[in-house]
């Protein structure tokens, strides 16, 4: 497979992983904190919230997905441009809006729909450009150089 095509595919796969992990993580965090309820801002209230948080399955699952986001983010930046990954990741805002409409039946203002449309066009424009414009050393190259 040509190198450019390979880089583009693995970049898009990891950006997609970033978007999915960040959104699922945030939704699970929201669910977990809703289950715990409003936290009282007293020493006793914060202590209780801490105990409830570390025993809540949704919170742990959220942390797992947010670690997944961070790992995907660090990995993709080891070869792809920051100016490619950063705007491409904004696709998550569009995904979240669609999820809110489909699953939560939220009403979305025309202004927000216009914003989603601009994000989609922007992400497609960025997606057309080369994901890597600087030389990123691969692990194999680093090994050769260090030996």
């Amino acid at each position, binding site marked *: 497979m040509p190198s450019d095509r390979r880089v583009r595919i693995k970049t898009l796969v990891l950006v997609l992983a970033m978007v999915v992990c960040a959104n699922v993580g945030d939704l699970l965090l929201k669910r977990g904190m809703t289950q715990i309820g409003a936290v009282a801002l007293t020493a006793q209230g914060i202590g209780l919230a801490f105990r409830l948080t570390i025993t809540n399955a949704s919170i742990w699952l959220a942390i797992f997905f947010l670690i997944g986001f961070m790992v995907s983010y660090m990995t993709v930046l*080891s*070869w792809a441009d920051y*100016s490619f990954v950063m*705007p491409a990741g904004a696709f998550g805002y569009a995904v979240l809006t669609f999820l809110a409409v489909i699953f939560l039946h939220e009403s979305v203002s025309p202004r927000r729909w216009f*914003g989603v*449309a*601009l994000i989609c066009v922007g992400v497609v424009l960025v997606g057309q450009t080369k994901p890597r*414009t600087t030389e990123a*050393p691969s*692990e194999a190259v680093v090994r050769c150089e260090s030996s």
Partner: protein
Amino acid sequence: MRIIIGLAVLILGSTGGEIAITHGMKSVGEPARLRPRAVLQFLGRAVRNGWFWTGVPLMALSFYALLVLLSWAPISLVIPASALSYVVGTFGAKFILREDVSTARWAGVILVCIGVALVAAG
């Protein structure tokens, strides 16, 4: 004035942190394969990189600035204004990381920036 300074800390902290992490990851080098073992080895090298530990406190500073700003200004101003970080980050990518930002990429970044501001404004 303090809101403008707060926004500057928020935006420069997050983009500065991300640029430092990007620089660190580039110097670490990509994993040889996208397999769990190779990625874990890559993460092991990444957390021993100084640029990674420069980026993390900058991002923490940005998060703190966000919390402070939310106590000073309405969320409907703070979150859309933080979308400016897409443009600032692209300048950083061009002039600090020496990435080749084409016209198409600039156009995309500006559309994303306006789009995120509109979505965040609700």
